[in-house]
């Protein structure tokens, strides 16, 4: 990039962070390219945070572009659609991009290359619509946060009763040095992003919008300014923030722009803020204005291990090998393939995995840029980890407690406020894989919690049964007692009358029976 933008005044700082050298130059040289339709698309049924979807199609079905393939009734979930027309050839387990390297249920489409749409109903005049209807449309379009978290967006557009939102913050601060899909999207499609902003503002009933953009994105900044002028959409403020990893983290960006902190265990909505990524807003605009569900995304294919780094728009389900091939293939010294950036991305064991909604970057690295981890040495308590921690934690203490398996202590030291940005491990002079220790501790605690819940349920069930049996016994005893008392407590006359009445009932029954027998 030739020039740097001037950083806005009156901004705030979060603790720590790291300033990295720019790695954007190569991949921003070309415009976003559309990948040709691949022969086969593999769509995992869970590409979001929340409940896994259930297929609504079966093998052999002919599907059209945009047709619903799988959905879930759960509030926190996002349906899956067919990115192009074709035939369902399998609904089975397939390897998916996940740090575990495990398989998950997927729908496999054999594409027909015709790219035939299903019927659509665009809504150009969304401001006349009911807000909950709009949210439903966004939910049904399968839109999730495209910054990497993949949390269903419609949930974030519904602050719920009791919370008033006063600011919409748009996250255009792509802070991982390799990733620039948002940058390119803004440069080329700023107008639609602004429409997305407007839809989100309408849903949230908020006027004020601040777009946080890093000072190394001058072209994107200019594009947004131009689009604001063209569309005449008001009350949008561009805020230029310093390039510092992890400014693109939601909590960090909110702190930088507003000086407020999202309360521990709380949501941005608790302090009147909702934050959406630019890619997400673009998808929202497409969903409402063109009635297009989320079918594709822009992904940065980069790294020294790829011959022609660039940004590509591809359908979900596209095998990553196709993306690599489209970008000239791998260089001979490629050694590691990452989904995401070099700080938070995870390594893939194969490129035969599908592109998913959360994938913002495919980074093919050489040993030179992604070196093999060194042998960990003893912690020298230097405190560098603490200096860079954007959550203000004590990474070193967390490491000691995680290593000693003192998980209660890790929680006391706010382990769950760790966003796993990797700054601590990056600067650790002893090359201790700190983040790995935190993941381990988190997983152990989660397992423990699950076990406790299970045993709690079992115990509750047992106790309930005990109470029920006791109650039944007591009720029986009470009834008996009542009956006895009724007999004992009444005077002779009424007793006599009762006996008389019983005898008469018996007599009447006998007569009736005799009658029926004779008939």
């Amino acid at each position: 990039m030739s020039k740097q933008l001037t950083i806005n005044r009156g901004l705030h700082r979060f603790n720590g962070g790291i300033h990295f050298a720019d790695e954007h130059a190569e991949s921003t040289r070309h415009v976003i390219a559309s990948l040709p339709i691949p022969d086969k698309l593999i769509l995992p049924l869970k590409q979001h945070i929340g409940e896994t979807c259930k297929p609504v199609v079966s093998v052999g079905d002919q599907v059209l572009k945009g047709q619903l393939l799988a959905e879930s009734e759960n509030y926190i979930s996002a349906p899956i659609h067919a990115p192009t027309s074709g035939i369902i050839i399998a609904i089975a387990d397939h390897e998916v991009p996940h740090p575990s390297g495990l398989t998950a249920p997927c729908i496999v489409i054999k594409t027909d290359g015709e790219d035939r749409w299903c019927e659509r109903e665009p809504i150009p005049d969304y401001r006349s619509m009911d807000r909950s209807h709009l949210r439903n449309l966004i939910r049904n379009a399968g839109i999730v946060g495209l910054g990497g978290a993949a949390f269903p967006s419609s949930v974030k557009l519904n602050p719920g009763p009791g919370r008033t939102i006063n600011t919409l913050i748009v996250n255009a601060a792509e802070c991982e040095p390799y990733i620039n899909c948002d940058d390119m999207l803004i440069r080329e499609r700023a107008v639609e992003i602004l429409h997305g902003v407007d839809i989100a503002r309408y849903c949230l009933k908020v006027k004020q919008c601040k777009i946080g953009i890093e000072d190394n994105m001058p072209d994107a900044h200019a594009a947004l300014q131009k689009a604001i002028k063209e569309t005449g959409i008001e009350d949008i403020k561009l805020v230029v923030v310093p390039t510092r990893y992890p400014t693109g983290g939601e909590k960090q960006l909110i702190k930088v722009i507003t000086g407020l902190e999202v309360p521990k265990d709380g949501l941005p909505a608790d302090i009147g803020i909702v934050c959406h990524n630019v890619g997400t807003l673009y998808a929202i605009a497409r969903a409402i204005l063109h009635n297009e569900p989320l079918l594709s995304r822009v992904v940065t294919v980069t790294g020294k291990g790829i011959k022609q780094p660039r940004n590509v728009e591809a359908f979900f389900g596209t095998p990553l090998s196709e993306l690599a091939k489209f970008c000239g293939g791998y260089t001979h010294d490629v050694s590691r393939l990452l989904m995401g950036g070099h700080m938070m991305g995870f390594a893939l064991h194969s490129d035969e995995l599908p592109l998913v909604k959360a994938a913002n970057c495919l980074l093919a690295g050489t040993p030179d840029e992604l070196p093999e981890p060194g042998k960990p040495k003893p912690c020298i308590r230097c405190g560098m980890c603490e200096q860079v921690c954007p959550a203000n934690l004590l990474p070193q203490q967390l490491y000691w407690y995680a290593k000693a398996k003192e998980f209660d202590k890790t929680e006391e030291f706010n382990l769950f406020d760790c966003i796993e940005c990797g700054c601590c491990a990056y600067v650790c002079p002893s090359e201790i894989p700190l983040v790995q220790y935190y993941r381990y501790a988190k997983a152990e605690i989660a397992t423990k919690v699950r076990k406790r819940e299970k045993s709690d349920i079992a115990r509750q069930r047992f106790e309930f049964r005990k109470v029920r049996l006791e109650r039944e016994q007591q009720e029986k005893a009470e009834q008996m007692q009542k009956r006895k008392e009724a007999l004992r407590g009444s005077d002779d006359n009424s007793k006599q009358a009762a006996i008389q009445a019983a005898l008469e009932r018996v007599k009447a029954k006998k007569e009736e029976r005799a009658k029926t027998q004779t008939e």
Partner: protein
Amino acid sequence: MRFNTATSPHDHSQNKLDRLMLHVVLALLPGTAALYWYFGWGVLINIVIAVAVAWISEAFILLIRQRPVFTTLKDNSALVTAWLLAIALPPLAPWWLTALGVSFAIVFAKQLYGGLGYNPFNPAMIGYVVLLISFPLEMTQWLAPVSVSGESLSLQQTMQIIFFHQLPVDGWDALSGATPLDKIKTELALLKTIPEIKTDPLFGYLGGRGWEWAGFCYLLGGLYLIYKKIISWHTPVAVLSSMLFIAFVFYLFDSEHYASPLFHIFAGGALLGAFFIATDPVSSCTSSRGKLFYGAGIGVLTYVIRTWGGYPDGIAFAVLLMNMSAPFIDYYTKPRVYGLSKQ
């Protein structure tokens, strides 16, 4: 295509342990050169002896502890410990003094606690204090700066003194002298005033002659370490400013009997201590706020020991005393986690 996997983050900064330690040695070079300029070959010979003994004793104890020898030696931490102790010792200290101090520092103060990262006290300062308490005579026989005594010893002469205790014909008196801090202490006891004492050629512009230049070089080296983000500014700033402050208060109160604040900074081991010893990561505080308290404690204690204590310089004792309080300070200076309310 298949790939190898690893966990995030997938990159690492260039500041790795062994390089970090080398940077510290690099930052010590100007100060070492200044010492050599003023005090002669003895400074360098001390360093050579100290480093050799440090490596040998560390290798020895690692073998006994059944730990990897070469990978541990390669972290350069023993090198730094040896270097720091060597430049704190009198330039004509007999070889066995240096060897004893360094081996005690490495074997007892470092490795027997579990090695690098586990030692509660600064090993170099433990070595120094052990020598100071056990051999007070040898430890206080400093060489007068070349420009004061007018005598410069050749390499051969220096080696003869250090290894064989063969003194030159006219003996110790022409060569050795008290350190400026020592001088002030003894002369004050003889009821002289500071301005009178400072007329001695031993004193330079700010601190002791020669010493002040070494101090200035340590300051430069320290700034380099801060620039390289190898140490944080908190500790040295706290050490020096607290020392300046307390010295200033007493200087205002009675400038005849209390040396000036700048003299305290540029005399003795103040600058070496502030930038290179108090900043030892292992034995100091970890949080930024904690480092401020820790450093301030060292500054004040050094002044107290220098002024009213039994030893001319107090850096080593002050550092060790604050090492003891480091975990306590850390406990009370935990940073406020993002999103936690201010209470």
